[in-house]
């Protein structure tokens, strides 16, 4: 009897505090804004038709933007951008760091009611690796045992170490004990698709009706080339946390039109402000500049004279006034690059990887001249052989090439030729290493220095510099298996130092995202790797 009354009192107390809580909330919201009366709809611009909403084939940021709202992988980002558990709520890593055992959450489901199981992940991942699928980027999976062999036709699917032990347990074995594997698994290629749906219709993701998702949203309407609407998914296990009910993605290709629509109140958000408007919006409180995990470089072909000499390569880097370029000419919020890895990676010390490292070079025309002299002496030349700077015609690359040409003339008295080609032709030229110095940009696959530094190892398929350095290769290889995060970052810093001393590439600048977000919207999370996360956004007024 006593027990019951105690329980009763406890319940009453709880109820009272809960009510009091409600009251507080009510008075707080009536003072400021009454969020509850505002319909939670946001209108953003995708920029064009997403080519596919099937995560296996997506390759562009447009598709990724929608896909990241529709599906959820084993891990996820929370509203602060922290990596948290996603579809799996338990992850066990073996002592040697090579085996990951994921436990899928109880009761997670697809939007069509099917339950989501470990088998869905096994199927989806092996589908990406199947050479016949011709998925966009199976190479992200190559950390997994047997994956590369299967994908390149040298091994069988049975030897791929992705196994669903039962409906809830997924076991993945890696080639190396890579510490950053969770960051890799956050990639879009690792998102699950529903086996039954995919097998029933190969083009399941072509129309709104066929798309089955496991994430925060489902597609409610897809008017091709016009508008795509996604609606909060009631079957999503974490639906309570999702504040935005509906997202309308318009497909406006023209950046100026997009800007005008925002000004006319037809859009709540501009994710990529046209460069020419940045200057005039800078003082607007709706404007926000955010780094992007990408680097703009000029790449040397170190087997082509005159760039066979590291001092000559470095001389060019010292002759570039990056601050003048970003502040006075581009004015698009870009940051001058005095190192290679872009801003955005938090190292174990809590600092940004970039801020931890020294500035590897700066603008110094005296030093540039000195290095050039020394380089010429080493090579036995009295004058630098002529060279051509190549770039692709699109965007502001022409402007940057012309500025560099001018700076090399002023600071080193060099006559540099510049030459441009349309993008796809340019890529061909670049891959054939048919250049002396050429423009190229990189974004990281995941938020770690490893994927961007790894691009310049000897066996990397993205290294077109002809530069090969065993010390660099060793450092990168060592970092791959290093289990101590502090040491791993030290190794990566050392590798970057080698890269910057040898300088097969000149870092020019770090790209930025310039956004306008309406004052009516709160809680949009900007991300250095992708477009804004709208899941936790909240509309506070009409």
């Amino acid at each position, binding site marked *: 009897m006593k027990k019951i009354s105690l329980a009763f009192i406890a319940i009453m107390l709880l109820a009272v505090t809960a009510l009091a809580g409600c009251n507080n909330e009510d008075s707080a919201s009536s003072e400021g804004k009454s969020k509850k009366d505002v319909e939670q709809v946001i209108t953003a611009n995708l920029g064009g038709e997403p*080519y596919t909403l*099937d995560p296996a084939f997506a*390759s562009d940021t447009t598709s990724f933007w929608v896909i990241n709202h529709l599906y959820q992988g084993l891990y996820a980002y929370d509203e602060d951008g922290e990596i948290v558990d996603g579809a799996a709520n338990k992850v066990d890593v073996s002592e040697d760091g090579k085996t990951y055992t994921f436990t899928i959450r109880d009761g997670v489901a697809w939007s069509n009611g099917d339950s989501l199981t470990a088998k869905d992940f096994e199927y989806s991942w092996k589908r990406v690796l199947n050479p016949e699928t011709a998925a966009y980027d199976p190479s992200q999976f190559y950390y997994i045992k047997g994956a590369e062999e299967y*994908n390149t036709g040298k091994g069988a699917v049975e030897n791929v170490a992705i196994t669903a032990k039962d409906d809830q347990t997924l076991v993945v074995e890696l080639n190396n004990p890579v510490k950053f594997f969770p960051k890799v698994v956050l990639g879009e290629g690792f998102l699950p698709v529903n086996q039954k749906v995919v097998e029933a219709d190969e083009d399941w993701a072509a129309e709104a009706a066929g798309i089955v998702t496991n994430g925060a949203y489902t597609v409610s309407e897809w008017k091709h080339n016009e508008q795509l609407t996604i609606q909060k998914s009631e079957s999503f296990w974490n639906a309570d946390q999702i504040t935005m009910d509906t997202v309308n993605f318009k497909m406006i*290709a023209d950046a100026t039109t997009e800007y*005008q629509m925002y*000004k*006319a109140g037809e859009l709540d958000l501009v994710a990529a402000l046209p460069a020419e408007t940045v200057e005039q919006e800078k003082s607007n409180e709706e404007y926000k500049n955010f780094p992007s995990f990408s680097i703009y470089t000029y790449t040397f072909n170190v087997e082509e004279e005159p760039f066979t000499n590291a001092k000559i390569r470095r001389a060019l880097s010292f002759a570039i006034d990056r601050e003048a370029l970003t502040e006075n000419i581009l004015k698009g919020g870009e940051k001058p690059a005095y190192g290679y890895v872009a801003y955005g990676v938090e190292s174990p010390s809590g600092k940004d990887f970039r801020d931890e490292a020294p500035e590897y070079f700066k603008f110094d025309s005296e030093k540039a001249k000195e290095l050039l002299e020394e380089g010429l002496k080493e090579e036995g030349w009295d004058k630098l052989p002529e060279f051509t700077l190549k770039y692709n015609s699109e965007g502001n690359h022409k402007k940057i090439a012309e500025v560099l040409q001018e700076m090399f003339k002023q600071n080193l008295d060099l006559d540099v030729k510049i030459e441009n080609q349309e993008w796809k032709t340019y890529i061909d030229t670049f891959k054939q290493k048919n250049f002396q110095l050429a423009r190229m940009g990189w974004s990281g696959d995941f938020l770690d220095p490893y994927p961007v530094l790894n691009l310049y190892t000897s066996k990397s398929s993205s290294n077109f510099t002809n530069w090969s350095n065993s010390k660099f290769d060793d450092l990168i290889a060592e970092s791959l298996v290093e289990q101590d995060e502090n040491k791993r970052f030290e190794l990566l810093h050392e590798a970057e130092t080698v890269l910057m001393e040898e300088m097969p590439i000149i870092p020019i600048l770090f790209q930025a995202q310039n956004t306008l977000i309406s004052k009516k919207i709160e809680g949009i999370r900007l991300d250095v790797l992708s477009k804004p996360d709208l899941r936790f956004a909240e509309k506070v007024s009409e």
Partner: protein
Amino acid sequence: MYIVKRLFTMIVTLWIIATLTFMMMHFIPGDPFASDAKMLPEEILENMRAKYNLDKPLAEQYFLYLKDLAQLDLGPSIQSKTRDVNTLIAEGFGPSALLGIQSLLMAIILGIGLGVVAALNHNRVLDYLSMFIAIIGISIPSFILAPLLIKYFGVEWGIFPVASWGTWQHTIMPSFALALGPLAIIARFVRTSMLEVYNQNYIKTAEAKGLSTFSVVVNHGIRNALIPVISFIGPLFAAVITGTFVIEKIFAIPGIGKYFVDSIFNRDYPVILGTTIFYSTILIITLFIIDLAYRFVDPRIKITSRGE
């Protein structure tokens, strides 16, 4: 007999166009799979090429394509992945055609009106005013006019929605932007040929018969003055109903105009071929209809093939 012959010529023309386009597009350097985002390893690219038959010899690809084409199948779009070229064209043609026809009607009605007014008031204020408007129409390119329309009618005065698609209000600004150029050209054509027609004896006869000015202008004047306009409208019709890159981009119209340009940048081979063939077909059919129309406005023009 004439129709059969004409049909045969049409098919041969299309085959030649398809063949030339096929050859030319494979001469352009570059690869449809070289994406902006990443340099993929060669093995992965090989898998992608195999999926679209691009690993086969060119001659084989060509015959495979012709075989599909004979069955009116324009193939898959490499860029769009899940949607084929037939679907892309079928979906985008509606908005493009609607906009095209609307702007063409606007151009014809206003152009003829302006031309007639100018001719009837030859060397007077209304003439100069009409021709002033026409000169402006010819000299302002649509990519200048469109942002101006957006800035004032869309943002500042809020009369029309800035861009996008859905209601009739969305179609007004792009239609006008598209119409202004042709409108001006038509006005100048009509003015010149009206002036010419007005010196002909049959007009004097009609006037002498005591017909009203309206009747003279409509029944005798315009009808004869339209012949040069019709020759101009034919190719224009084919061009505007298949969409325009610039206007559709600026106003975010879900049309097919962008595929003509984007497909080339993306090296999306089936879309390059598909759009070229589609446009050629429309153009050839339009020219055929125009030939028939000549006969309607001027019975003296006979449709015969040589030697008949």
